[in-house]
């Protein structure tokens, strides 16, 4: 019982990484832009956040540094894609490749560095409950932050005028432009938000989830987050659920290893990647369903007056 409670807590923590990144990517996809650079932004943010914590000792400054790094890279991506009309897939890919190299370069001096120990968090009262208390109410504040973010996003997208405009930009940029909305500026803001959230997720990985720096440590989570937005058919609540599902798959792998199951560790490590493929296949099987939910201008360039 106790071990399952711990497993649940670890699942939520692992899912939070994916949830933060995927929720951010969801916003920029709602505006019609696919950013395949998620992995690169998360890597750069991971080292930026890690370095910030090493030098300042504050995890929160680490998060801020990560968000800043993610937002900056996303802004460069956005300028290229939105103003110079470069191909979104190729540019995102360039960002991922550049991010992998650049983070490895920046991180050389930090490979052996250690972070100060994290403070223990506990929600007073609730944390003392038997079994569920330690599992659900002693997690890092950002775990709850991801849930709040998802709720806030549902409200923003479907209950506010700004959310409506954002969705309009993603569905039909030319109509939004004709109505006088600054399509490109809105798209840039959405992309920068996506980058900042990917950055937060990256910094969470390197400062809280596994507090150390290793080259390439994001290990595909950026790509899995991209897959999650499709899996969730671009809905925030489903993104959150999907993220926890994948967090569970990641944790299952460690749990199975601990139970002494006779399966090679590499096979268990494949689970999250195989699960991503399986989920993509299941969700994409019905093309009309995807088409009905996907922002109509996703991946297509828009240049006003052309």
């Amino acid at each position, binding site marked *: 019982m106790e071990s399952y409670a711990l497993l649940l807590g670890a699942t939520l923590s692992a899912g939070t990484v994916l949830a933060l990144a995927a929720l951010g990517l969801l916003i920029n996809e709602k505006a019609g832009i696919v950013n395949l650079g998620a992995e690169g932004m998360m890597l750069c943010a991971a080292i930026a956040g890690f370095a910030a914590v090493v030098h300042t000792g504050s995890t929160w400054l680490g998060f801020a540094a990560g968000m800043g790094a993610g937002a900056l890279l996303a802004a460069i991506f956005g300028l290229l894609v939105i103003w*110079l009309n470069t191909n979104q897939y190729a540019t995102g890919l360039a960002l991922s490749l*550049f991010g992998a*190299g650049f983070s490895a370069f920046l991180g050389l001096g930090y490979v052996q560095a250690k972070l100060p120990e994290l403070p223990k968090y506990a929600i007073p009262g609730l944390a003392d409950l038997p079994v569920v208390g330690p599992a659900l109410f002693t997690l890092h504040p950002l775990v709850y932050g991801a849930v709040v973010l998802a709720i806030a996003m549902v409200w923003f997208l479907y209950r506010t005028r700004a959310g409506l405009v954002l969705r309009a930009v993603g569905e039909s940029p030319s109509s939004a432009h004709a109505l006088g909305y600054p399509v490109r500026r809105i798209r840039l803001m959405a992309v920068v938000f996506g980058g900042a959230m990917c950055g937060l997720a990256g910094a969470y990985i390197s400062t809280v989830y596994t507090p150390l720096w290793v080259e390439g440590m994001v290990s595909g989570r950026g790509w899995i987050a991209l897959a999650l937005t499709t899996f969730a058919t671009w809905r925030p609540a489903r993104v959150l659920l999907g993220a926890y599902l994948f967090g569970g798959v990641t944790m299952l792998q460690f749990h199975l290893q601990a139970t002494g199951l006779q399966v090679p560790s590499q096979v268990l490590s494949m689970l999250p*990647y195989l699960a991503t*493929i399986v989920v993509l296949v299941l969700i994409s099987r019905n093309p009309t369903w995807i088409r009905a939910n996907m922002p109509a201008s996703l991946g297509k360039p828009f240049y006003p007056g052309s």
Partner: protein
Amino acid sequence: MLKLEQRPQASKFWTYGSPVLALLITVLIGVGLFVILGKDPVRGLQAFFWEPVKSGYALGELAVKATPLLLIALGLAVCFRSNVWNIGAEGQFVIGAVAAAGMALLADKNTGPWIVPAILVAGVLGGMAWAGIVALLRDRFNANEILVSLMLVYVGTLVLGYLVYGPWKDPMGYNFPQTKTFERVTQIPRLVQGMRMNIGVVIALLGSGLLWAFLFRTRAGFALQVGGLAPAAARYAGFSSRKALWTALLISGATAGLAGALEVAGPLGQLTPYVPAGYGFAAIIVAFVGRLHPVGMIFSSILMSMFYIGGELAQSRLGLPKALTGVFQGLLLFTLLACDTLVAYRIRWMAQKAGPAVAAAKGVR
């Protein structure tokens, strides 16, 4: 205010000028980086652009690294031209190497030279099988090929890890995660005595010629490109998009697998966890910088190989991190994409205030 103005036709000048301009910008940023790091930029540039070409031996090493890059890029060019986004060539390369190693491990003292073609075929089939999964899932279930092919890179690397840490580990290898060294007979024939360069170079150059013929002289190649540029036109002409998808992925899987086989039975001589050296990702840059053109990619693969060797030299001579290679490769693709805007658009400087036409229109009202 800057404004982009669509050109009536793609600019011929910038089609070729843009990669050159992108390289210049990347070099300028590189010089800046050397200065920030407190290194002599001239020596830095020497490491990247002079040392790799200054002797016969150096040129041989340049070819050793350019070969897999060119081979993989040739296949990727087919994919990108038909608008199939296979970005998992690294995985196809790894599985090709694994399949080739499986064949090479079958050899013993009495094996004849037939083993070399068998190894290459195994590599090709391995790469094709791995890319075939992507094609199948895309074709049958409409699963996004970008994400599936990328996920299979991680899976492929783990398959390699399982084999070299598990069943294929050399029992006499002091517990290192690697297979035994392959028999001499499996060694891919070298071109020149004393150099690591092997017949892979010839195969890659022939491949470049074959790709040219396929793209520009066959109906299948034409159909594939029409499908990439204008899917509606391709449908109208009766070109099958499914066939294009399978062709593109199987060709690129085959070339990546072949590159893996040439690598593992060539310079490496055994299977190790270090087989994935990022060639599959660097080849994406090679393909774009080479304009997806068979001849252009020969040049860009040499350039990218210089980045690899330059990075190693910068590490040993100047004490700079080898990770610079990745930084420069990524930067080059970034700047290239930005410069490519000039191919389709003219950049105009527009005055912010209203032009005479607008003022006149207002006057009428």
